[in-house]
């Protein structure tokens, strides 16, 4: 089976489930948001400090907020069918432009956090399994438990206090140094510097989950017959672990990672706020406080698409790890 064929099949299968779900989410959120007191015109007027009834009415007319609720919903869905996400009252630009400007930042943060969670988690779990029930294992178990039980935003705040305020090693806010004209490696290094703390804060919980999972499944794999076969072939213990054990042990970890991608996106809202990271999560928060519902609905739509695509990627990774998984 080719990789593309498999990806296509998974996409199709997911789309069947995802399309109605997404529309349902959009409609439900639309009504929920309309029940929230206030609209974009109120917020803009309040921020302006003064407004007359006429200007308010003009604002509402401009954004279509004076229409009946169902008309608003139908026109939103009509826009959606034509791949338009509407216009943001607050940012005064098309929602799609707004989201596309923020999307890469969120993707970068999610990807960095996921990779960090997987790499650090698997390494920690592996070390724990090798030293099972000896002091390195017990020490790491305590660290992992702390990561597991501490909220990410608090770890984020404490990391800012330590690494930014006290030590001054890493920047605390934003995603790049403003007003500089960096290129090439310097640009990358600058971006990476800003990425470290937010992705660590976002990844901390998942590091703990993957470390525990890897530890358990590595210990489980050691008892399997094929490990004895590998030893009977005269393989070096390191080869046995890398070549025979790790891949088998990773299968449950990738399953969990696939399920976690959605959680990661949710966590990003908080972490982006803590670190002033210009991503979709913070955009969603700004949209809520500004009653800018077009933007919020757009963010929700893109988030669900993102989760679907990420699941396809995980599915492919899974198929590569475990050849027994085949689509019937």
């Amino acid at each position: 089976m080719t990789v593309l064929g498999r990806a296509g099949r998974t996409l199709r299968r997911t789309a069947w489930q995802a399309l109605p779900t997404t529309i349902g989410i959009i409609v439900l959120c639309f009504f929920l948001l309309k029940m929230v007191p206030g609209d974009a015109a109120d917020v803009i007027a309040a921020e302006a400090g003064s407004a007359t009834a006429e200007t308010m009415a003009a604002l509402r007319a401009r954004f279509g907020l004076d229409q009946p609720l169902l008309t608003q919903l139908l026109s939103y869905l009509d826009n959606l069918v034509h791949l338009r996400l509407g216009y943001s009252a607050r940012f005064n630009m098309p929602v799609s432009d707004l989201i596309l400007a923020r999307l890469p930042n969120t993707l970068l943060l999610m990807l960095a956090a996921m990779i960090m969670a997987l790499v650090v988690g698997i390494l920690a779990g592996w070390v724990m399994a090798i030293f099972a029930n000896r002091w390195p294992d017990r020490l790491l178990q305590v660290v992992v438990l702390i990561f597991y039980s501490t909220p990410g935003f608090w770890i984020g705040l404490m990391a800012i206090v330590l690494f930014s305020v006290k030590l001054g090693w890493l920047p605390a806010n934003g995603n790049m140094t403003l007003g500089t004209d960096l290129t090439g490696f310097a640009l990358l290094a600058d971006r990476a510097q800003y990425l470290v703390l937010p992705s660590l804060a976002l990844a901390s919980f998942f590091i703990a989950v993957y470390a525990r999972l890897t530890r358990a499944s590595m210990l489980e794999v050691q008892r399997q017959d094929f490990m004895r076969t590998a030893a009977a072939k005269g393989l070096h213990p390191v080869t046995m672990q890398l070549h025979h054990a790790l891949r088998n042990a990773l299968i449950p970890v990738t399953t969990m990672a696939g399920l976690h991608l959605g959680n990661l996106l949710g966590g990003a809202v908080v972490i982006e706020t803590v670190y002033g990271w210009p991503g979709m999560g913070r955009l969603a928060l700004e949209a809520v406080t500004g009653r800018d519902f077009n933007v919020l609905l757009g963010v929700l739509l893109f988030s669900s698409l993102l989760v679907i695509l990420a699941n396809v990627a995980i599915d492919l990774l899974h198929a590569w790890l475990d050849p027994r998984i085949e689509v019937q």
Partner: protein
Amino acid sequence: MMYPLLRVEDLTIGFPAATVVHEVSFEVFPGETMALVGESGCGKSITAFALMRLLPPGARILRGEVMFDGINLVTAAPRTLRDVRGRTLSLILQEPMTSLNPVLPIGMQIAEVMRRHEGIGKAAARRRSVELLELVGVTDAQRRYDDFPHHFSGGMRQRVMIAMAVACNPKLLIADEPTTALDVTIQAQVLDLLDSLRRQLGMAVLLITHDLGVVAQWADRVTVMYAGRVVEQAPVRPFFASPRHPYARGLLDASVGHDGEAHYTTRRLNEIPGSVASAAFEHGCPFAPRCPVRIDACRLSSPPLVALVPEHRVACIVTAGTEHVPAVG
């Protein structure tokens, strides 16, 4: 006089709670098939794993010596041991469904052992693996090289295991109940294959089994274990003609065919009374509680293995006392 390829002497294996294999001694000569027989839990598999130092966690070799090809495997350095494993001494496990790595192509798993020991390149290892697959009777080997274990049936997987085990032309192959998990028609095919490979490659086979039918058909010599001890050791013909240890006699009486007529007229299978003693049994002859010929002395100390005639040894003071006993050897 041929020198033994493998000489196990006084091998004693313990788990933290108890000693499960007591002073086991036997030899395997070049090119022969030696069967290690006993019922479940008698320590035969543990003995086999101990020879390769592949004991499960917790189990330890407490005493004894395993001389293989001039090396004492009990005290050998890990590196020396790794050079022996898979090259001159190889292993086939009982359960073919789980003894191959499920996420790696089978060809690669065979090639791996040759690349490890013979330092040959990827292409050469692939070519040799395909030849080996053909040798063990896997059809369309060239294409099946890249297949995964779950694409094969149990019998085919065991053939793949055999290909892997004989890849480096070992001097001794340890087969731990290689056919227990297979159905009966496949059993015979796999054992025939093992036997023909033994002849072709000139290797010795240590066959661990609980099936006396298998022993009668494929083994040259037999060592019977009971509750962690060797109770009888003999070439196959004399053993089946006249087993000496009361346990071995009971086993043969209990099999249909040995006295088939009696069985079919009385419609009752003979059995050994009582239930099997724990391998951790410490005092006296472990078979004494079930033994039809026991005397009081049986309960005092565990009987030594003595030769009744050269090549035929038995650990039973009653048998040894009633027959002429030449010097031990």
